[in-house]
């Protein structure tokens, strides 16, 4: 039942794209079981940071360690195993639209099994039972045989979460998990993430746009600005004054810069 969960230690991590430095010398320790929000405006380096942790993006310099494992040195099989261990969910869900929900969820098992049966699309009864359990947990059983592209955004993200859970991950990376969802579905997905964090003890790193979401759901908030960490504390300390001091704008403006707001703009340039 218990898989050893370790802490994630990031040291001096940078990522440069040509002349642009997306992530700049970041140091970050995430203890096992923490639910951490990474906030920042568009282009602050949130996605790059998360994508470096599972090595979808190669770091330019610096190191990432998970317990005794040097993540930045992993190659081949070991790298694929690490990616299985730190499951990721995406802003656009990244499901296979033409495949049914069950198949999408079973994708989470691919790293646990030999490749030939997978290539032929053969999954065992035990794996199917796992998928059914996961779908049942988030109230998705009724749509298990529907094609993924027929689902609403909120359903798709929860299916993506089931896929992530079938990886039996040791931590979860959530890259803007609710940025494409309406408020109701956003809450369903965030509730599910917190449930996984509390019940399964899974470490979660979530990139979030909205500060209120970060405050409501997370144990700790890290704020990025131009690739650097400018705030790292419990959510209660993330007051409007702090936002003003860090970003030099009000919290309202912080949100308005990235998300459409249904109110008239105060000034038009």
């Amino acid at each position: 039942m218990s898989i050893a969960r370790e802490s994630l230690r990031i040291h001096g991590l940078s990522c440069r794209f040509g002349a642009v430095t997306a992530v700049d010398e970041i140091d970050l320790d995430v203890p096992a079981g923490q639910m951490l929000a990474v906030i920042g405006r568009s282009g602050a380096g949130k996605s790059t940071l998360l994508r470096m942790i599972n090595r979808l993006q190669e770091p330019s310099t610096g190191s990432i360690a998970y317990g005794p494992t040097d993540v930045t040195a992993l190659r081949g099989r070991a790298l694929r195993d690490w990616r299985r261990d730190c499951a990721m969910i995406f802003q656009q869900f990244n499901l296979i639209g033409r495949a049914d929900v069950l198949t999408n969820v079973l994708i989470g098992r691919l790293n646990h099994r030999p490749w030939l049966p997978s290539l032929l699309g053969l999954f065992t009864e035990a794996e199917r039972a796992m998928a059914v359990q996961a779908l049942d947990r988030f109230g998705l059983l009724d749509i298990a045989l529907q094609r993924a592209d027929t689902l609403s955004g909120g359903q798709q993200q929860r299916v993506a979460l089931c896929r992530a859970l079938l990886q039996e991950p040791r931590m979860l990376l959530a890259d803007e998990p609710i940025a494409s969802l309406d408020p109701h579905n956003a809450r369903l997905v965030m509730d599910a993430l917190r449930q996984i964090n509390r019940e399964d003890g899974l470490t979660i790193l979530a990139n979030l746009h909205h500060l209120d979401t970060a405050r409501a759901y997370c144990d700790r908030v890290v704020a990025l600005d131009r690739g650097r960490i400018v705030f790292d504390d419990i959510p209660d300390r993330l007051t409007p004054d702090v936002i003003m001091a860090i970003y030099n704008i009000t919290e309202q403006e912080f949100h308005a810069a990235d998300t459409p707001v249904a109110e008239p703009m105060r000034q038009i340039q």
Partner: protein
Amino acid sequence: MIRAGSIGPAEITAARKRLPTAFAATSWVWSGIGGMAFLAWLILLAVWFDITPTRLAGGLKGLLVILAQMFPPSPGAQWADILHGLLQSVAMAFLGTVIAAIIALPLGFFGARNIVLNAAAHFSVRRFYDGFRGIDQLIWALAFVRAFGLGPLAGLMAIIAAEVFVLAKLLAEAVENTNKAPSEAITAAGGSRLLAIRFGVVPQILPIYLAQILYAFESNTRSATILGVVGAGGIGLQIAERIKVRYWDEVCFIIILILITVALIDRCSATIRSRCA
């Protein structure tokens, strides 16, 4: 928490009870029978065509002899004839494609479900295109050689006749796949149906149609090389004559010239397409 280790027979039974369809097994018997039948059919065809290893080996040997005779490629004595034929092929393909594209433009719209709203009309128009598309370019060429006499005019007509219905079908599908939101906005702004098509549909299909025309030009250049074999003008006549007298080195030279020409057209069309995307 979901763990593979915690899944036993009891859990599988419970899950199966929750959602039986998730465990629907593919029928191995039927896939097996289907696979065997397919294999039997392939073997039957091979027997029918008398495909035997001996015949294959004999043919392969003949092919190697031809290949050996192709090198080194040589232009032979009639450089001018070859160049003239090649230019004629390209010109036939170009002119034929342009004329076909112009004729296909209205036909494409008439074939689109969202333009011709009557289902019966749409269906019959599309089947009409399908019917004519079934006639190969070479058949058209044979017919036109009889009607117009030997020479590039027959070939040109063959290219047009064969290409019009292909382009009309592709255009009709492109029109059907357009996003209807822009034309809805034009209708909402008080525009007529014609204007809704002009501003709501045409800008969406223009780059697609252009790409299709460019591809048709390239493909017609390739197929126009064969039209000369039946006397419909172009480089094909030069090839056919040289094959008759087994001047394989000159045939090879002409093939290389055709490849270079097609590659050049492909490169140009890629440039144009990337600028118009």
